């Protein structure tokens, strides 16, 4: 099935560095990732793992004053990295749409909803004001807003959180982009609304034959919606595969730890698994070795690679570092060495 899907975005060896004080520190490292048409690819990880930075790097939203990027992000033949603003704007909004986490702050408080949705059309179509208005109203209708003519004239603060997120989605899909990047699109919403928004995204993906990159920290959301999953830790992708591969046969110790730490359905209240230690800050991140090694101290040094690379364990399922091969949690017989 994967072969049928055509590749939309091909990210290769992407690195992003942030300037802190006088030095640059790497926030995402050597990311290789393919996004195809007709799929939802989830990028999952905890705060600070670089998943949002990845999205902003591809969209060219980072402030060039305090960041540096290397590598390529090939979108249908054009490398988006280091593209000039004017060139980039031929893609943003038209071919690639973006949905942000907090729908309130993502909308200009002083402009009417209709005007903000229309803005995407102003820059990418030759429609006159009247056609634009019609299209905006139809877009608002498409994202499940029942009284679009009314909402057209409202201001963002007059809408509920779920409605605002629908407006933000309407802006992103206005030009029927080939790729939608959704950065934590449901984190600020209640669960019942979350379910509706995820269904909407899925519908749009099917209807427009586009690819969606869904960035989230919520494993439940991933399991419910994603076709493929990339798990990120400390700026690297540590596991990549189909949703079934990653959830049914997780390989990387980090993925397995996360799934263990999650309160499961039918939990009897036993202690949850706690990942030892914490993610080092950007400044203190080592520049080689397995970055997850300090969090599984019982695994012997020789199990890790010097410079961990991705290994294909089955068709389309990749894991970083060799340490996954013999990995066991302490209660499964994994032993503590050293200390």
């Amino acid at each position, binding site marked *: 099935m994967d072969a049928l899907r055509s590749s939309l975005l091909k990210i290769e060896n992407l690195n992003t560095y942030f300037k802190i004080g006088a030095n640059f520190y790497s926030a995402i490292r050597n990311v290789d990732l393919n996004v195809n048409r007709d799929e939802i690819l989830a990028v999952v990880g905890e705060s600070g793992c670089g998943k949002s930075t990845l999205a902003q790097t591809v969209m*060219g939203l980072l402030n060039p004053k305090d960041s540096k990027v290397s590598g390529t992000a090939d979108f249908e033949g054009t490398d988006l990295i280091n593209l000039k*603003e004017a060139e980039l*704007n031929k893609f943003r*909004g038209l071919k690639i749409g973006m949905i942000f986490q907090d729908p309130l702050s993502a909308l200009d408080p*002083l402009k009417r909803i209709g005007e903000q949705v229309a803005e995407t059309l102003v820059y990418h179509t030759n429609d006159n004001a009247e056609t634009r208005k019609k299209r905006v109203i139809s877009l608002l209708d498409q994202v499940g807003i029942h009284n679009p003519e009314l909402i057209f004239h409202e*201001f963002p603060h007059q809408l509920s959180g779920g409605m605002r997120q629908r407006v933000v989605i309407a802006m992103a899909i206005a030009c029927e982009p080939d790729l939608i990047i959704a950065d934590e699109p449901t984190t600020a919403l209640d669960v019942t609304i979350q379910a509706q928004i995820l269904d909407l995204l899925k519908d749009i993906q099917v209807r427009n034959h586009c690819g969606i990159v869904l960035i989230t920290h919520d494993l439940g959301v991933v399991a419910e919606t994603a076709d493929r999953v990339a798990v990120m830790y400390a700026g690297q992708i540590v596991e990549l595969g189909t949703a079934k591969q990653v959830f049914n046969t997780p390989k990387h110790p980090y993925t397995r730890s996360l799934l263990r730490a999650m309160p499961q359905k039918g939990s009897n209240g036993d202690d949850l698994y706690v990942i030892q230690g914490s993610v080092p800050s950007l400044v203190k991140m080592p520049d080689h070795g397995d970055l997850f090694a300090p969090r599984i101290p019982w695994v012997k040094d020789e199990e890790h690679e010097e410079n961990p690379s991705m290994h294909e364990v089955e068709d389309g399922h990749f894991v970083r570092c060799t340490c996954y091969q013999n990995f066991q949690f302490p209660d499964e017989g994994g032993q503590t060495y050293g200390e």
Partner: protein
Amino acid sequence: MWKTILRRVLIMIPELIILSVLVFILSKQLPGDPFTGSINPKSSPGQLHHLMQINGLYDPWYQQYWNWVIHLFHGDLGNSYEYQEPVSAIIASRAINTFWLSLVTMIMTYVIGIPLGLYAGRHEGKLQDTLVRIYSYVTMSVPFFVVLVLGCWIFGYDLSWFPTTGSVSPQASGFFGVFISRVYHMILPATLGALFATSGITQYLRSGVIDARNSNYVKTAQAKGVSMDDIYQHHILRNALLPIAAFAGYSITGLLGGSLFTEQIFSYPGMGLLFLNAVNFRDYTVMTALVLLYGLLSLLGTLLSDIALSVIDPRIRVE
């Protein structure tokens, strides 16, 4: 919208009453009486007593307050002790000068302050920004009267570019000539006043621009493919100007305060100079009237600010 404005105006009524009572009490506390200036050595205490009686000065305070308010409404603020003219006439002739000077100062402030603030905000951290910040720190830290005195000395006396006294040259004639002469007299004091006032606006606007640029709606607009120039024009500018517009009404108080210094140093015949002279000559009727007027204008300023804000910011347009 109109309801909000009307309600806001109605709220002013109790404020006005409190203001008038305070000013009335103040005026009663001051020594002397309205006839202090009009008695001559031949007047007898009996005559004075009679005058006080027919003018109701022995009435209970609320009766007096009521009469005072009625007079106020008729524009009758009493006679100046010093000039022996109706206070309202004196103030009217001075107020027009102050009004023009303040207006020009305000326009100059925005003409200088807004571009500087926008420019500094857009080029945050660069040389341009540093220069603007140095400028605003300097104007902020030097006391106002020092700026005025220095300006007056350098550009008025030393270089003789501008006149340093009065509001119009006595030689000026014809509508156009008088107009030119008036503007010429205002340029130096207004510019100096504006220089002082810009630092606040520049800093406010600069941080407003920086805040707006880092906001998520700017990221959204970028993601829509809007160019940065257009984002500045359509999103950042309006959001950053919001606090400045709201501040415009309040700045009336600042302008009036500033006019005390400016008019004194440039001997500019406005309300500020009148007030200082009234204090010097213990011209209590003029003082009282001016305090009342200053209070009224300040209230009006806040009213304007509130209305302006509710017009610009949809979040405040509450039903």
